[in-house]
């Protein structure tokens, strides 16, 4: 009996030693030290990134000093309190190096004895680049220190033994850096970086397993957060509920859109984070969430040229009309009373040879003012913007849809146009 007990104890000790060795060697990867930047530009960049990461929603208690922590986070495993991330040397992160800061961001641990709980979203932040982490560090070191001791966590046994988290990390916390998808464009990739990394959207929108880890097979598929449901924000889910990229960007900017307004936790995410981002970043997030971008990369002269060639080649008469004419003459050819003549029913269009129509498109018309309050035009000249073939196309389009007796009118060709303009 005693021998068994001894063996068991020995085994337990061995296991404990093994785990300690694993925690020591694997738990906290070493990170190179870099000096803390103090220039205004890096600090401003860090401030922006802190908004993108929505640090404040969790690291500020209700009515408390900004970033001084103490915000309660309820988990199925007990209650946690967020930490003070002001640079107070006693109670905050004063004196923390940029390397330790990055270890906490990316790996959730800067010491073997007290790793973080994954309420800190290092499970997403491992995608954050070292440069961005350093800028965040520079920003937090620059803010006013607040002396606010951390409230002790109230976790249930055995999870109140913090080093156990290394085991959880091994199972569930990725350490992959962000890798851009070369098939996708810059906006999509920027969106991916923000959504999957710093923005940590999945921490609410991805369902969790029994051990509280995000289920990566169901990424962004929607999850229950206390009383509410963080909805499915995968492309198909968003599209099915009527979201477009523009409306998503609008929602991120204002918290409201034709698809509804933000409430509960998402209201905080908009108020403290999304609305503070640049338009480009909001569009990037929307682009990624809707997987809404083309497969061709968006940068580079070649792409611009290729796309514009394509846009030009594909221009039907209708496209030409809409982009060149409709902003004055109206999408339905209705014109603007006493300002722009209507094309709908316009008899000039119905002149069979098309001379006047083509000449007007080519030369434009000077302001035709009757009195200070009544006058038409001026109309710009399109000679230097449209080819003869394009003029023929747009002329044929306006004739076919707006001219009285359109069915009798002959179709104009590029050669006809050239002849008229000779």
């Amino acid at each position, binding site marked *: 009996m005693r021998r068994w007990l001894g063996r068991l104890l020995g085994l337990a000790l061995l296991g404990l030693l093994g785990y300690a060795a694993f925690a020591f060697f694997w738990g906290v990867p070493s990170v190179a030290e870099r000096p803390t930047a103090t220039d205004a530009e890096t600090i401003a960049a860090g401030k922006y990134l802190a908004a993108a990461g929505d640090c404040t929603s969790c690291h500020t208690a209700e009515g408390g000093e900004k970033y001084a922590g103490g915000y309660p986070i309820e988990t199925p495993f007990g209650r946690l309190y967020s930490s003070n991330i002001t640079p107070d040397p006693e109670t905050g992160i004063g004196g923390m190096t940029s390397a330790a800061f990055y270890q906490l961001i990316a790996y959730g641990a800067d010491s073997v004895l007290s790793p973080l709980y994954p309420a800190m979203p290092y499970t997403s932040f491992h995608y954050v680049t070292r440069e961005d982490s350093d800028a965040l560090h520079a920003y937090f070191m620059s803010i006013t220190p607040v002396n606010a001791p951390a409230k002790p966590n109230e976790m249930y046994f055995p999870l109140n033994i913090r080093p156990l988290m290394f085991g959880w990390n091994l199972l569930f916390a990725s350490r992959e850096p962000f890798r851009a998808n070369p098939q996708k*464009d810059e906006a999509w990739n920027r969106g991916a970086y923000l959504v999957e990394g710093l923005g940590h959207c999945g921490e609410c929108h991805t369902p969790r397993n029994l051990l509280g880890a995000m289920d990566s097979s169901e990424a962004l598929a929607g999850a229950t957060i206390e009383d509410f449901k963080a909805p499915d924000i995968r492309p198909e889910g968003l599209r099915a509920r009527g979201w477009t990229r*523009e409306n998503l960007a609008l929602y991120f900017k204002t918290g409201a859109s034709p698809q509804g307004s933000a409430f509960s936790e998402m209201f905080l995410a908009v108020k403290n984070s999304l609305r503070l981002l*640049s*338009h*480009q970043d909001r*569009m990037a997030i929307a682009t990624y969430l809707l997987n809404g*971008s*083309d497969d*061709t990369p*968006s*940068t*580079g*002269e070649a*792409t*611009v*040229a290729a*796309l*514009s*060639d*394509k*846009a*030009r080649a*594909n*221009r*039907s008469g*209708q*496209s030409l009309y*809409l*982009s*060149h004419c*409709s*902003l*004055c003459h109206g*999408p339905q050819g209705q014109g*603007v009373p006493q*300002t*722009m003549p209507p094309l709908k029913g316009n008899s000039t269009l119905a002149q069979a040879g098309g001379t006047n129509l083509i000449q007007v498109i080519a030369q434009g018309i000077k302001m035709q003012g009757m009195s200070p309050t009544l006058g038409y035009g*001026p109309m*710009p000249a399109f000679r230097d*913007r449209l080819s003869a073939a394009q003029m023929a196309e747009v002329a044929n389009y306006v004739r076919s849809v707006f001219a009285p007796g359109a069915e009798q009118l002959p179709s104009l060709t590029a050669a006809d146009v050239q002849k008229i303009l000779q």
Partner: protein
Amino acid sequence: MPTTKIAMTVNGQTVGPHEVSDGLAMVDYLHDYLGLTGTKFGCGIGVCHACVVIVDEPDGTSRTMRTCINGALQFAGKAVRTVEGHAKDGKLSDVQQAFVDHFSFQCGYCTSGFVNQATRLVEELERKPIAKSQVETKLADALGEHICRCTGYVRYYEAIRDLVLADPRLTTEG
């Protein structure tokens, strides 16, 4: 409404591709897709010229285009400059500074159009200087279509005239 995918260069930066409605006004594209709100929507019928932007041609010349009556599609593949693109490193361009120094604007709604048109004019004079005696006429031709309802134009004209006459590269004697 049909849509088309467009990309262009705005203030030196490649933007797009964006799938836009073929009838989208360029000014709305600048505002809603690019977040560039310095270009103002004024009359909406191509008269006031508040919404003018610069389009740089491949041959090194440039022209201005109204963005309220021209669809974004027309700008596909082009190099566009808006009022946001003039100041460099926090320093206003010479044209902008001249307007400020001359108290040229009050409400500022027409200013981005004037800045773009005057910038294009100054660049044209850099390539092709004109005689000092022709400056007044040239100014009236270039800026004459721009409507301003606050200052009565005089200060805009004075600002550009002083700027042009002070720069020996822009004019010749005579």
